[in-house]
């Protein structure tokens, strides 16, 4: 019996571990950061030395609540911490402080956008439910050398928010879209930086398959510690194919923990730590239950930025931006806000401004600054506007000069390049370069009449008068030439039609 892959449906749930943007660790005051010498960012609380007590970092709690508000979760009245007991050298205390029964975030959903049929077509939107998110401590880093392993506890105790989805994802593309959307929300709210190269975002991926139309979920496997969006996508594809193959061969799926080898693009069974799942959780006696005040929730609610897809809808519907430009702008909150300042300075042509920002400005910024690493290798590089010499109102000024016909669109590109280099106003550059288009009707009328009188263009004129609209273009070149390209093309067109009409 043969079946096609379309007879099967894949069901995916993700557990996303995100290091929160704080200066100190989550239960200790030790600083943390990437690239420090091993064990230089460790204090007695991190190691759980006798006599030490963990105290929860307010910023880590608030960043977690803020995430909850960003995804529309309910913020519980209380949250508390539990001990997850296991022996493994990445964990100096033999237990990890985590939240089991009363997590800081419950529920919520993340809107995702699937790829459209082409780059300029918006794809389908879906909502992926969040089951909960809990605030825990990251563990140390192991490296394996010869017969032994080495432990660096710099990462131990770094605030880690584990975001657990419902099994709502149905394809590798949806998993990819979810992670893109989640990363955008986390970074735009300042909750986390999500820098993949620094290991700030790691993902566990639960995959199962079932026959289409079957309600009951299949046996799932969990592939752990994926550190890029492409690894998640590849894991889903690999694991889906493997499970379908097994089931179609009449075998069953073992519920197991797996790893992913990105270099070889294949998964493998993790040698199960014996009884690894018997964590004997119990409430941590050192950390009291925390009451979260509604005042704090109200204060943090004000920090929730506009959702990126709400912003995208607003740009397309209210500002009439093309989808392509809107989708580029909303991915970067700073860029979107910069764009909006420019629109405020020149409200009549948002599309003109968006084009310059999403194409020229973004390209030049990316070229002038090395692109930072991100969890998503395929995403456009995040650029820094802090070093941008052009101010939003200045860009608006450039677009206005074009809209008013003072310079052509082609010249605007040249002026933009100059503005990017010097930070000068568009008008100043236009004047300095003598680019101002000639809009003096009297002088231009004279030139137009002279060109029309030239026998060389008589044929084109005859054709135009015979109904060939395009023939009029043949007359524009000589006029432009005689004005050294400074004539306003709109005005030339009007005058030609007037004299030939």
């Amino acid at each position, binding site marked *: 019996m043969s079946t096609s892959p379309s007879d099967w449906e894949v069901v995916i749930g993700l557990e996303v571990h995100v290091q929160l943007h*704080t*200066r*100190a660790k989550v239960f*200790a*005051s*030790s*600083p943390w950061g990437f690239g420090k*010498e*091993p*064990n*230089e*960012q*460790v*204090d*007695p609380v991190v*190691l759980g*030395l006798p006599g030490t007590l963990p*105290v*929860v*970092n*307010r*910023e*880590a*709690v608030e960043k977690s609540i803020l995430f909850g508000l960003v995804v529309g979760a309910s913020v519980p009245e*209380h949250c*508390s911490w539990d001990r997850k*007991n296991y*022996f*493994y*050298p990445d964990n100096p205390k033999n237990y990890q402080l985590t939240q089991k029964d009363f997590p800081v975030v419950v529920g919520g959903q993340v809107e995702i956008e699937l790829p459209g049929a082409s780059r300029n077509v918006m794809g389908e939107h879906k909502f992926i439910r969040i089951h909960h998110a809990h605030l825990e401590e990251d563990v140390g880093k*192991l*490296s*394996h*050398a*010869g*017969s*032994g*392993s*080495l*432990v*660096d*506890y710099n990462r131990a105790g770094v605030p880690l928010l584990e975001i657990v989805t419902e099994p709502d994802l149905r394809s590798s593309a949806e998993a990819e879209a979810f992670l893109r959307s989640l990363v955008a929300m986390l970074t735009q709210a300042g909750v986390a930086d999500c820098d993949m190269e620094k290991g700030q975002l790691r993902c566990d991926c639960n995959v199962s398959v079932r026959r289409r139309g079957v309600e009951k979920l299949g046996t799932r496997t969990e592939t752990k510690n994926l550190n890029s969006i492409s690894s998640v996508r590849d894991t889903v594809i690999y694991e889906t194919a493997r499970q379908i193959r097994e089931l179609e061969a009449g075998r069953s799926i073992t519920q197991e923990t797996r*790893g992913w*080898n990105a270099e070889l693009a294949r998964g*493998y069974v*993790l*040698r199960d730590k*014996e*009884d690894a799942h*018997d964590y*004997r959780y119990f409430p941590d006696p050192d950390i*009291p*239950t*925390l*009451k*979260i*005040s509604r005042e*704090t929730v109200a204060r943090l609610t004000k920090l929730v930025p506009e959702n990126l897809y709400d912003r995208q809808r607003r740009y397309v519907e209210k500002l009439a931006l093309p989808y392509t430009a809107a989708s580029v702008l909303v991915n970067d909150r700073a860029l979107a806000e910069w764009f909006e300042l420019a629109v405020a300075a020149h409200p009549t042509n948002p599309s003109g401004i968006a084009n310059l920002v999403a194409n020229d400005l973004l390209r030049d910024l990316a070229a002038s600054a090395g692109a930072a690493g991100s969890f998503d290798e395929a995403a456009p590089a995040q650029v820094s506007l802090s070093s941008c010499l052009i101010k939003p109102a200045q860009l608006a000024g450039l677009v206005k000069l074009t809209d008013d016909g003072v310079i052509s669109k082609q010249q605007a590109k040249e002026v933009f390049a100059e503005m990017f280099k010097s930070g000068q106003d568009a008008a100043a550059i236009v004047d300095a370069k003598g680019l101002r288009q000639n809009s003096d009707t009297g002088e231009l009328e004279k030139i137009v009449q002279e060109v029309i009188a030239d026998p060389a263009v008589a044929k084109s004129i005859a054709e135009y008068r015979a109904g060939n609209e395009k023939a009029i273009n043949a007359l524009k070149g000589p006029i432009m030439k005689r004005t050294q390209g400074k004539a306003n093309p709109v005005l030339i067109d009007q005058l030609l039609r007037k004299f030939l009409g």
Partner: protein
Amino acid sequence: MAEGFDIDHLAKLARLSLTAAEKALYSSQLNQILGHFQALAEADLPSTIDDARIVNEAALRSDEPGPVLGAEAVTRIAPASRDGQISVPRVVDDES
């Protein structure tokens, strides 16, 4: 009451090597402890969280980085170390 645990399994999880006498002793003690919890579970108590264990946000720590021990001090208290890292028997979670 019937034991709700397997003493051999618990000993293994806790990395304890127990003699038969110890197993008997701890089983009996654990049964007593579990008996207390059983009594608590059967008592008619309010389902709300114990107020005495609740703190408000004033009990939180501000996000101010404090002092660290330094790798030298960290590795000194470990049984073995190398290049500023703590050295342990090889643990494997690589592809096998």
